[in-house]
Each structure stands twice: as structure tokens, then as C-alpha cells.
């Protein structure tokens, strides 16, 4: 256990509580769960555009995402852990993506695959009206994978990076 310095004498209750931290420590359990979560990331069956084909290729025989336990594509958002945003998010699709994200149970993660979901990609130009310029404008994204489209290896690398992030838990810093 880490020694915490004693709180100042004139501290308010709120300050005391924040300084002392939680009364019940669930860190060990949380860490254990994180270890399991990191190793079993079920993606949502959800393709937006071109990158979806590379996502499928990453699940197919040559690259086989199932080696890392990520091969179980769940069609229902309620059972998925990670949303792979593969392709351009159009303005019309934006609210749907948000709704799907809300339907997923926590803890949940999102991977932005391809230039379009990072920044609008090739479809971004001054005065464009059609697309959402970056997935992180609507949902929080954990890992970004650049490319147009990225190779399946890059997606697997992204999943592994997400795994590192989940494993590290609170200790994770970019």
C-alpha cells in the first residue's frame, strides 16, 4: 500500500474524500477483469465503406484475427466490446453510429480504421457537406489506424495496441 500524506487540518469533507481516495479498493479485481477484457475483444459486425473489406480480410484465413480472440464478430451491439469504425461516416450515418455506440455495454472501445474516420480522409475538402470529419467528433476513439485503406496487418496491430491500453488500465498514458 502506498503511504498517503496526512490531509491538512483545515480540509473540507470533500477535499478529505478526494485525498483519501475510495474507501473500498477494487483495484485487484478491476485489474483482473482488465486482463480478461484485453484478451477477448469482440468486434461489432459493422462496415461503413471500403475499410470494411479490409476488416473482413483481417478476419479471414490469411490474417486471422481469431488468433487473438477477436474473431467473434457480434452482429448485435449489445454483445460487442469494440466498435471498428471501418470507413467514411456520412452525415446521415453519424446519428446511427452514435446510437450504436450507446447500445454497446460498458466497458467499450472504438477503433477508427482508415483516414476517413480519423480526419475525413480523402473526402475532406473545403466546403464539403457529406461526411463527418473524424469519428472522434461523435464517439471517443481509442486507437487510430491510418491508411486508405490500412492493410489488415495494421488493424491487427491496432487491436494489439488497444490490448496494451486496456491492460494498463488507469496507468495508461499516451
Amino acid at each position, binding site marked *: 500500500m502506498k503511504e498517503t500524506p496526512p490531509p491538512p487540518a483545515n480540509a473540507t469533507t470533500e477535499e478529505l474524500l478526494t485525498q483519501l481516495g475510495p474507501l473500498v479498493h477494487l483495484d485487484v479485481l478491476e485489474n483482473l477483469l482488465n486482463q480478461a477484457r484485453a484478451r477477448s475483444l469482440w468486434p461489432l459486425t459493422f462496415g461503413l465503406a471500403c475499410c470494411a473489406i479490409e476488416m473482413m*480480410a483481417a478476419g479471414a484465413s*490469411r490474417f486471422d484475427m481469431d488468433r487473438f480472440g477477436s474473431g467473434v464478430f457480434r452482429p448485435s451491439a449489445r454483445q460487442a466490446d469494440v466498435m471498428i469504425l471501418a470507413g467514411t461516416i456520412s452525415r446521415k450515418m453519424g446519428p446511427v453510429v452514435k446510437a450504436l455506440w450507446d447500445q454497446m455495454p460498458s466497458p467499450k472501445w472504438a477503433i477508427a480504421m482508415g483516414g476517413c474516420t480519423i480526419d475525413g480522409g*480523402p473526402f475532406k*475538402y473545403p466546403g464539403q457537406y*457529406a*461526411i463527418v470529419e473524424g469519428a472522434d467528433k461523435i464517439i471517443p476513439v481509442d486507437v487510430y489506424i491510418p491508411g486508405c485503406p490500412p492493410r489488415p496487418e495494421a488493424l491487427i496491430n491496432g487491436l494489439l495496441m488497444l490490448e496494451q491500453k486496456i491492460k494498463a488500465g488507469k496507468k495508461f498514458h499516451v
Partner: protein
Amino acid sequence: MAELIQIASDEDRDTFYLNMGPQHPSTHGVLRLRLHLKGERILSAEPIIGYSHRAHEKMAENRNYIQFLPNPSRVDYLSGMIYSIGYCQAIEKAIGLEVPERAEYIRVICNELNRISSHLLWFGTFLLDLGGVTPFLYCFDDREKILDLLDLVSGSRLTYCYGRFGGLVNDVTDDFLEGTARFCTAFRERLREYDRLVTQNVIFRNRTIGVGVMRPELAQQFGITGPCLRAMGMARDVRRDEPYGIYDRFEFDIPTRTASDCFDRYLVRIAEMEQSMRIVEQALAKLPDGPIMAKKIPRKIAPAKGEYYFAVESARGHFGMFIVSDGSEIPYRIHLRTPSFANLSTMRTVLPGTLLADTVSILGSIDIVLPEIDR
């Protein structure tokens, strides 16, 4: 998405509306179908599109002809090679640019390889829609070999930008030529395997034969093209009807069937893969030496003022480009006539009366690519 639906009479109480998509495993991306169902029987179906609208046509008006090059392959990412080379051919025709022989042959080889890979992906996802996972993975395995070959020459796996006005970016290597020839022999063997695994399979036959019959008059009403049209018994193919490039130099058949159900559309595509291989083999045998870029390429790509139309046969059908030029470097308007859009429009008439499970197989059998519909 709240669309209020009025319940008109007591009869309507037995029926319900089902919203299929935009996120549904078998709408191939982000198509949304609003189905009116009675039990599992479909009373009416309405495809709602636009969830993948990326404004390709509008983008064309904001950049010059060269800068539009990366776009066509993203309009239809499954047959991106055919689209991007088709666009090059359209512009070449508009400005009257001659393409060297060798480049033409390589274009044909790449186009046909891309057609096979597109059909293979369709084959896999079709089976996936029907619930067969394993054929999907076998197809991807074969497709991966084609992607390796195309990657070798163009540097991309999916959204190729291989063609340039007047030729191609890179010349092919011996590796590519040998690999293509090897692939053709190996793939014939695989087709026989698919025949045993899928075509003969009684479950597959029951799910597809007699399902989703398109009446021939729909072809004219909606402008159905490609394998869907050929499954109706009409041997129409842009490569034969108005040959572009050097397609008039090759011998190939146009496979047709007559029943126009899912099974026929399946068989037509399988036969087309064989024909594509025939073309590839002929092109490999005749491939001449020489440069791959035209000598004199104008620095300024600006077709004379006027309207141009150019069509190619993509894996899904008749893909046409209508280009309006005002004589400047920036196109006044580019309209893309895409096959999936026309083919999907028939769903309103084809789907009613079928079962929900058939919806999936019919939708799968017409082979749609969403960005191509929404452009």
C-alpha cells in the same frame, strides 16, 4: 429516425414494420430496408439509401481531372481497378490520347483479375448471408492471392490508383506474369471444389432456386445490367456490345441463364469468373513489349467543351461516366451511372411476397456496393 406509421385499419394490426439496417450483417454496409411484414412474409419493401453518401460527383466539380483519379476506385471499392482504369479511358477518349499496346494488355489483365476478385468476394458474402461461413473464408483465401498480384503491380490492395491518363504507373514484373498464370491453373481446381461445396449442396439449392425471380420487363423499367441481366437470358455486356480498350481482340463467351433467380445469378457469376480467366490467359499469351506510357501527354488535361459518355463493364454491370466539360481543367460535371443503383431499385417490386430469409438471399444475389449507390 422516428417515422410515424399510421395504423389504418384492423387488418394492419397483424402487420408490422421492420427496420433492417443501416447496421445489419447482411445489408452489405449501410443500406437500410424498411420492410412491411406480415409474419415473415414481406408485404412491401423500401430501400432507403444515402447512409454512405460521400459526394464523389460533387468532389469532381472541385478539383481537376487528374485529381479526381483516386475517387473512382472508391466509388466501387470491390472493382476499383475497373472503375479507375475506366475513368482513365474515358478521359483519354475525350482528349484523344493513344495508349501504348502493352499498357492496354496489362489493363485488361488487371481488370479481369479484379473482376474475379470482386465476384469472389460477392460469392463469399452471399454464402455468409445464407449462413455458410466456411465458403466465405475459402473465397477470401483465393481473393488474397489476386490481391497479392495486384498489389505487386499497383501497390494497393483494394482502392487501386494504377491507371494514368495515357498509360499506367508501373510496368508489370515477371513475378506478376508467372503468378497470374499460376493462379489461373490453381483457381480452376478451386472452382471445382466450390461446385462440390456449394453448387451441388441441396440446402443451398433449396435456398436459391426459384427465389427472387426478376421478371424480364423489369430489366427495361429499371435498367438492370450486369450478371443480373444476363441471368435473365439477355447476353448484354459492354465489353462485347461496344468494346472499349482492346476487348474486341479477345475470345470470350457471355454466360447467360434464363430463370433469373438467385441460383442463376450465382451460376452466371461463376461462369463469368471462368471467362475472365480465359481473357487473362489470352492477354498473357499476347502481351507485347514496349512502353507503358504514351509519349506525348498534354500537361493540361482539358477536354474540349462538350459532353462525353463512356461506359465500361464493371463486375456489377454497366458503369457509365457522363462528363460535361466547359473546356477548362476542372470538370463542369461528372455523373456516374452505377449499376448497383439500378439493380437495387428493383427491390421494391421483387421483394414483396417473399420471406424475410429470402430478402437476405435476394439482396445478396444482386451484389450491391453501397458507396456506389450513394456516390
